[in-house]
């Protein structure tokens, strides 16, 4: 066969292939088969070498023309095919309301979320977050916190003992002492962590719970700073309108001491028949106060130079209020519906 016949035959087969191809991907196959590196055109091109040298340029010219034609046809066919495919896609109509395919979704426990939010708030204001052991000697739990043996307040911390002087901490306050022993003022920390008390379990009480402790010590720190930070914290956790109220109270490690209340987020302080606050309009968060001078002395801080405050709030209790949960035990039951709803 001469070159012309070859090319004619090639073109015929190319057109057949083009006609029989369906869609962009089979057009690609046609392109490879005819125009690819080891395609048919290459074979024809090689045959030029057998021609007398004088005929070669013209033959090359003819081949190039054929290639151009084929490419044009291919491009055109490809454009048509793509248009068809896009058209087909555009005409699709699905039921977008059909239930989604669920991802494997994880979540943070709601109590821990509150804990992280409290810590994040204080971190933003320059506090560090420190954690400590849950087994503590009575020195850190009591003595160093101005609760000597025989102090009536020890009864308020009905604790689980492992040995006569080693116990599961009933509060996170031991970390106040550990932190102050290791650092000189300024000290600004929050301490999240698990605590234990021998409380009979009911809808409001657990024998194991989590606390968030806060401690700020420096020159010139006063109770107004405590109220300011706690108001900000409550707004972060419960909503932007929260107010904070202090009531006098007694803790051996703070003086003056306060019980901290915040506006009931459910009734917004209106009280009445509110089931969350029992009608008082206030929710009790926990204790706070100015660190007792004896505690400062115990860590060799001069109470005439440094002052500071501390607070300790129950995290489950805050979560109970934030998520309007009816029973505090749910935070340890890990019921699927509970975790999913509050994820």
């Amino acid at each position, binding site marked *: 066969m001469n070159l012309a016949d070859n090319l004619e035959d090639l073109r015929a087969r190319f057109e057949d292939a083009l006609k029989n191809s369906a869609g962009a991907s089979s057009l690609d196959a046609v392109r490879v088969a005819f125009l690819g590196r080891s395609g048919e055109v290459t074979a024809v091109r090689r045959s030029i070498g057998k021609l007398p040298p004088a005929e070669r340029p013209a033959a090359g010219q003819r081949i190039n023309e054929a290639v151009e034609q084929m490419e044009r046809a291919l491009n055109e066919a490809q454009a048509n095919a793509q248009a068809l495919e896009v058209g087909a896609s555009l005409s699709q109509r699905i039921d977008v309301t059909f239930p989604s395919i669920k991802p494997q979704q994880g979540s943070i*426990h709601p109590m821990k979320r509150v804990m992280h939010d409290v*810590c994040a708030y204080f971190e933003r*204001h320059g506090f560090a977050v*420190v954690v400590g052991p849950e087994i503590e000697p009575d020195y850190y739990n009591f003595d160093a916190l101005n609760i000597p043996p025989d102090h009536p307040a020890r009864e308020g911390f009905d604790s689980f003992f492992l040995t006569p002087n080693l116990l599961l901490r009933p509060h996170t306050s031991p970390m106040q002492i550990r932190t102050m022993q290791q650092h000189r003022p300024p000290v600004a920390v929050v301490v999240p962590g698990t605590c234990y008390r021998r409380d009979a379990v009911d809808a409001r009480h657990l024998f194991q719970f989590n606390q968030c402790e806060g401690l700020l010590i420096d020159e010139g720190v006063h109770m*107004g700073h405590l*109220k300011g930070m706690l108001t900000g914290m409550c707004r972060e956790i419960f909503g932007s309108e929260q107010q*904070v109220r202090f009531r*006098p109270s007694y803790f051996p490690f703070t003086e003056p001491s306060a019980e901290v209340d915040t506006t009931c987020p459910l009734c917004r302080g209106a009280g009445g028949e509110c089931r969350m606050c029992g009608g008082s309009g206030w929710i009790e968060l926990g204790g706070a106060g100015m660190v007792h001078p004896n505690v400062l002395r115990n860590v060799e801080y001069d109470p005439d130079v440094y002052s500071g405050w501390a607070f300790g709030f129950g995290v489950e209790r805050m979560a109970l209020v934030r998520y309007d949960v009816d029973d505090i035990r749910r935070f340890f039951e890990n019921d699927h519906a509970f975790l999913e709803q509050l*994820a």
Partner: protein
Amino acid sequence: MRVPLGWLRDYVELPADPAAVAEMLALLGFPVAAIEMRPAITGVIAGRIAELGKHPNADRLQVGRIDVGDGAPLTIATAATNVAAGQTIAVATIGARLPKLTIERRKMRGLESEGMMISADELALPEEWFEDGIMQFDESLQPGTDVVEYFRLSEAVLDVEITSNRVDAMSLIGLARELAAYQNVPLRTPDLSHPGGGAGGPKAEVTIESPDCRRFVAQIFTRVESGPSPAWMRIRLALAGQRPINRLVDISNYVMLETAQPLHFYDAGKIPNKHLIVRDAREGERFVALDSSEHELNPQALVIASETSAECLAGLMGARNSEVTDQTTEIILESANFSGPRIRRTAGQLGFRTEASSRHEKSLAPALTAVGAARAAQLLAQAGATPHEPVAFGEPLSAAAPIEFKISDVKRLLGYELPLPEISERLDGLGFKVEPLTGGVLRVVPPAWRTDITCSADVIEEIARMAGYDRISSEIPAVRAHDIASGDYRRERKAAVTLAALGYREIVTYSLHGAQVYDKIRRAGLDPPARPIEVQNPLSEEQRYLRHSLGPAMVTHLANANQPARAFEIGHIFYNEDRQPLETSMAFFAFSAEPRDEPEWHDSNYLRAKGDCEAFLREMTGESRFETAADEREGFHPGKTGVVLMGGREIAVVGQVDPRLQRTFESRLPIYACRIILSTLPPYDVPQFKPPSKLPSTYRDLALVCDADLPAQRLENALRSAAGAWCTAVIAFDEYRGSQVPPGKKSLAIRLTLQKPDATITDAEADAVVEKAVSALHAEFGVTLRV
């Protein structure tokens, strides 16, 4: 403490609304747990039985003519048997409203009854604490007096919580003083001057042998008459939650509730030589308390004894032997002060508490002994007893030490300034003496009854309380820079966020559990921890042991789900090391999954768990490649467990939970888990960017036949090093065992990716690398290419 508002009003002017009083108390630091409202009762008056006779038509009824002051006497029939002519009783007149009924004109067996004689129950008083039948009043109560108004029976009772530092406020006068100072109105105390008899009368002798008795006021009363207390006292005691007993016991309780000072009365006739000795109890000394409970004492208990026997457990309860009875005519009054801790220890040891001990154990002020004695003497004298000279034993009363501080400290702690006159006035209302010194210094002497005020911060709290805590402003402090690090917490938080992102739900479980966890481990044929950490005083057996792992609670959680679920927990675990209880923070994640139909040498659920583990470790450490070694670990499947090593150190265990545990923990589904001791993780190593080569790479998929027990990771590593510097990745992606390969062999499909740093790699070069590498593997492991 139950505080009847009607009683409290004796001492201080108060708002009518009980809620307003409660609010005030709360803002003073005495939260009110409950406001017990009293039922509205009207139309009950005092009546005197002028005549009493039999009902004409009924044997069981009596008919009285009752003098009710103004107007005609009333004719009233009653079935009660405790009535007699001359008595002053409670009468509900026609129209009277009682808690359970309204009195109407009615006929009783044909006789018109113009009202009803009523009992304590109808006045909403605990009937078992009052006379059986019709309520009796004192003769002095004028007929016609409105009973509800006179006894303030409609006034609410507040349940007030009193913090342990304020034992002085465990009394009506104490609370009244707070309310008076806060409102800036006068406190009306009862007459506390001592009506002691002249010298020369009988005196008690007290020998104090223990330093734990600081003061003991003793006084003899003669011509004591017993019998019931007047109605007003019985009603007040009942509303305050104290059962009325008799005139003497009631006076001691009344004075305690009023002043906080507990008292004890001894029948002087039972005390030889009227000599009392405060001493340690003797080992094994028997003591029968007046409630008839019997105790065997030891020297830790403090007793007040006669010359022959213990007559009172100090601060707790008297002995039956010298208890006052209806026959008592002469008593010794004890108003004493004891060491609080000593009383608390004894109460704890003997396992009982009384109203008296709950005050003594909080360390009362010694000065209150005189107050209590004086008030009791007043009431005893009113009741007709003859007081004799009181004698005080023990330490003399000393004035409280003055406290000096700078006025500027008020602002330094509270954040706001108070003018000196206001400070003085506020403290004065509470009984403090205030004296300004030069240099802005205040000298403050706390009142004798306040044992809780020992430093300037205590005084400043008093100022703040009286000024009102709402005066404290809200300020955001400018926190100065410090060097305290948050590393451990941030690692825990990052672990939680990472695991949540990997699709695990966080759970929080109890750290304490019962022996049943160990039973399940034992029933699985495994060993529970040899020396678990045990709580010495658990509330229940379910809380006896501290968890050694987060695994059991996790497996329990997933078993309860009963369908495929994924969860994680981060928390402390506890273990003994050299008999020292230690703890560390663990992260534990796990999922349950339906078993898959896979050959026994392959478990894709394991590979999923391992993938999550690697993703977690990557996020926590910054490393991207981890080595795993097959190993056995307690709680995990012996053939499906890998330990992940980093720098030769074990940082994670990942595998299937031991199927025997799956069975004893009753999980329908197999569980795959990973545990990480967070402190073993190296600090996060920030990855450094290497620009990827722009030159094309090539790959070869090799089917390598090797021994079935040759770990893929070893083959990968060998291939990587044999392939040399051009090798950029080696990864096994399929495994085959079966008829296509010889027995004991497997075929591993491994993709080897090759790239030259400076030029495009040619096919020939790639083939050469493969050939060299495969022959190296052949030499090392006998590996052949599968064809």
